[in-house]
């Protein structure tokens, strides 16, 4: 699957970090992901209960600016999160694919940003079973996840220094994100405009064909005995 065309070609700090991560095999991440799931299960069991309306879903979460994708199996008894390298094929039976820039996905997970707003602005896409995707979004939004707080709670006495370090990192990341946004606009905007013109021309053509189709169908019906 190579659906890499996205409306806002992401050139975020995460992307830059992504290049650095490229040689990192997903297997190395697995212990951290396992820990994250156990933490989520302990601190936010409601997430999994809220997903009970969907029958055994399997989500593919695709941060478009990372060379990695994640498979989430929110089984209430044993939730699992695993990482896939970009070229690894996803497992069978994916219910829905959620795509967006990593920072947006983190904001969404922490309830800092409204999923619909992300969607309306085309930063977030849901493919496959939209109902399952919406359920996941609602469940996560209802959980009041706070990654920093959740991780810190697991750290115990090391909390305070860690909190300071994370705070600094968060601020740096924000500033970096703003700078990169400016750069992205300069590099990408002209290319986007061209694609735009082509798309409009294509749409006009399609409307014409659709109109012809209808006229033809009418005639066919009228001549049917």
């Amino acid at each position, binding site marked *: 699957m190579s659906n890499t065309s996205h409306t806002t070609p992401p050139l975020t700090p995460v992307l830059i970090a992504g290049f650095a991560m490229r040689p990192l095999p997903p297997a190395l991440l697995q212990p951290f992901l396992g820990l994250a799931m156990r933490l989520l299960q302990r601190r936010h069991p409601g997430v999994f209960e809220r997903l009970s309306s969907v029958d055994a879903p399997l989500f593919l979460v695709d941060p478009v600016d990372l060379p990695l994708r994640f498979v989430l199996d929110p089984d209430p008894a044993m939730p699992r999160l695993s990482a896939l390298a970009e070229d690894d094929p996803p497992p069978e039976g994916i219910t829905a694919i959620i795509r967006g820039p990593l920072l947006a996905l983190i904001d969404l997970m922490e309830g800092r940003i409204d999923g619909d707003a992300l969607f309306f602005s085309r930063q977030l896409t849901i493919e496959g079973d939209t109902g399952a995707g919406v359920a996941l979004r609602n469940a996560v939004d209802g959980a009041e996840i706070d990654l920093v707080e959740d991780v810190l709670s697991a750290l115990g006495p090391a909390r305070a220094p860690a909190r300071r370090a994370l705070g600094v990192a968060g601020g740096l990341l924000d500033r970096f994100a703003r700078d990169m946004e400016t750069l992205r606009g300069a590099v990408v905007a002209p290319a986007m405009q061209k694609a735009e013109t082509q798309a409009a021309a294509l749409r006009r053509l*399609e409307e014409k*064909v*659709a109109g012809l*189709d209808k006229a033809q169908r*009418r005639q066919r019906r*009228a001549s049917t*005995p």
Partner: protein
Amino acid sequence: MAARLTLGPVFYNWAPERWRDFYFRIADEAPVDVVCVGEVVCSKRQPFLDPMLPEVIERLQAAGKEVVLATLALIMTRREEEGVREVCRQTDLPVEANDFAAVSMLAGRPHVVGPLVNVYNEGTLGYLARNGATRVSLPGELPARSVGRLAAAGLVDLEVQVFGRMPLAISARCYHARSRNLHKDSCQYVCADDPDGMDLDTLDGEPFLSVNGTQTLSYTYVNLAAEVAELQEMGITHLRLAPQDVDMVGVARCFRELADGAREAGQAIARLDALCDGIPFSNGYFHGIEGVGAKGPLEVVE
């Protein structure tokens, strides 16, 4: 006993003379038992029909039809409320309420409740029966299971629409006017241009809905020809035909024969197909699936 046939009100903005002549022909030729008359969709059209109404009623009554006055579906202004009150106040003819305002005005005397009033369960049906309703025309959305249960309650006569476009929504906004960049207040009555509704197609050119001023209907014609027997077994007493811009006398004859067991459903559907000029049929709501769906003999084999 075989079900009676009701001709629902004309939803469209037909020229007054045409509207009158349509009912004259119904009076003279159509084997229907009940005829609903009156403007349901837009109060702005009312003044054009009023002058025709007395002679239409007279002709229908002379032909032995039960004439019922249908009220406005969405009442927003004082003037509209007064108009409906006037209809409900007269006692010469039975009234079909299409809004709870009319249900309220008709409290304590026999009346009909129309399909635009939300009657989904025995609780509401029971209330309406106590309020004076003698017949309730059920909302088109109801599946067979609900229709059967309401019929089993045996509270009042029940009616189900078996033919014609299904009214799906009503709005304060006029979409006919909007399609011509006009506002409702200065609409120039452009809805008159589409006597069977204005097609609304998807971007793929597939006909989907039908617009009639402030009302939105299904593009497909509901056709429960194959379900008439089942409806009668459930105890449905009246079958409703919604007037379309087709030979409604022919349509009425078809359903009369079906209700009398004098015609096979398959034959009737073929006949209706010929009368309706290629408009697709649907019966999905009754079968508990999407309304646009077609089950049984209506399924189109490509």
